[in-house]
């Protein structure tokens, strides 16, 4: 099984190379570098902080969108080209196929992240960059797993991508939504309000706490203690959940 996983992962990674994903990332980084250098020249003070914050927040969204789109389109193509059926016609289990794909996409995300870190290390400290990058890697792991799950569930690029983005941005902003729903201005004992409050809290329970992941402020002011442990704990719990859900859908998929 291990050998099959490695082979599938290797070919998934090669597909990323041939699709010029790294080229796109390099161009994106060069553009971002030019933009931050320009903004850094304009700033009167805190120019390095501004530059690291801009690169950090820009690359976070860029990598999440790029990786998610690549996973969804690559899997769709494989299903349309019957590559999926071809692999499963060999003595390869569905779980093996899933983990091979997951590992391949994860390796791709790691390389994109390494390219980002090279640029980021110019403007930010090594320790801060390392923790930020480790957190983004966990975030990308979750995004890859949720992209696979959405594609297996919806079988449609547009729907899958929209759902992944909705999931991502909702997870990032659920804290603020919880606070707003509990705000004194909205406080009432009406059933509708109470229902909404319970609903928001219930949704928060099943979403990953991406609000605490990959904060750009870590690059400017240094990460607080325990942030990485929090990120790792959440990933260790949520990633198996997504993998199991993805496998559940993959096993039930009719060829």
């Amino acid at each position, binding site marked *: 099984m291990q050998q099959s996983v490695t082979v599938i992962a290797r070919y998934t990674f090669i597909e990323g190379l041939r699709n010029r994903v790294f080229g796109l990332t390099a161009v994106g980084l060069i553009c971002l570098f030019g933009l931050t250098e320009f903004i850094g020249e304009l700033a009167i003070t805190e120019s390095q902080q501004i530059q690291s914050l801009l690169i950090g927040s820009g690359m976070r969204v860029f990598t999440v969108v790029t990786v998610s789109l690549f996973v969804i389109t690559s899997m769709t193509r494989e299903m349309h080209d019957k590559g999926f059926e071809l692999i499963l016609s060999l003595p390869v289990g569905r*779980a093996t196929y899933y983990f091979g794909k997951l590992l391949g996409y994860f390796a791709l995300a790691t390389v994109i992240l390494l390219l980002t870190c090279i640029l980021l290390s110019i403007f930010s400290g090594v320790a801060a960059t390392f923790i930020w990058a480790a957190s983004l890697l966990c975030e990308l792991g979750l995004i890859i797993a949720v992209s696979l799950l959405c594609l297996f569930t919806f079988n449609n690029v547009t729907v899958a991508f929209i759902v992944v983005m909705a999931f991502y941005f909702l997870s990032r902003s659920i*804290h*603020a939504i*919880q*606070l*707003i729903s*509990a*705000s*004194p*201005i909205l406080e009432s004992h009406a059933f509708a309000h109470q229902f909404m409050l319970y609903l928001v809290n219930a949704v*928060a*329970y*099943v979403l*990953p*706490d991406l609000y605490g992941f990959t904060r750009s402020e870590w690059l400017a002011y240094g990460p607080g203690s325990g942030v990485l442990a929090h990120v790792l*704990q*959440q990933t260790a*719990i*949520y990633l*198996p*959940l997504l*993998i*199991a*859900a993805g*496998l*559940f859908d993959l*096993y*039930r*998929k*009719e060829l």
Partner: protein
Amino acid sequence: MDLAYGLTKERPFRVVPAWIIAVFCSALIMQLIWHRLQPRPVPVVEALPPAPAEKFLALASFGEQAALSRILMLWLQSFDYQPGISIPFKQLDYPRIIDWLNAILALDPRSQYPLLSAARLYSQVPDNARRRMMLAFVYRKFLEAPDHRWPWLAHAVYVAKYVMGDQDLALKYARAIHTHVTPGVAPYWAEQMELFVLADMGRVESARVLLGGLIASGEIKDKQQLQFLKQRLQEAEKDSHK
């Protein structure tokens, strides 16, 4: 069974290995417990950032200046209701709010929203110094487009006269409406506000002279309107004799 299986797009649940369901259930339980153990989100008061340069906002709007103007206005308006906290107007940084209103108005000068907020929302603060700043902003912006922005200066007259009790300020704004707005653009009650303020200040003679001037210039043509204004003057005269 086989026929039913063949007709469905998905295979039955029993094909899913038990270990996947076990991992899913245990991970879900772990997630619920982990989330329960996390501290509740704590509201944090954020200070209003300085308003960016107008050129920067125009650049950031990508050509959708009117849309960005409305979005920023909604954001600014809700700033006193930050997630989980309600901040009294008194604690808001009024010079910064004025900078933001100015920048938002520069994005879309046809929008009435920033001036409405200045005249009707931010002037409700129980602090005359802050009210004065907001009314001065409305006055400055009124002078740039009197025919378009007179309603907000008319509201400023009301705030100055009845809320702040500053008759001189009310008179200044009422006079500005009369002087700068093109005759016929604003309704007569707005154009004649100066007259009402003067009468209320007990300066009946000045009001009489102004009314005479208005009649002589032909600005007041409607008989009922003239009758109303004369009646209002007589009442003010009686009050001043008491």
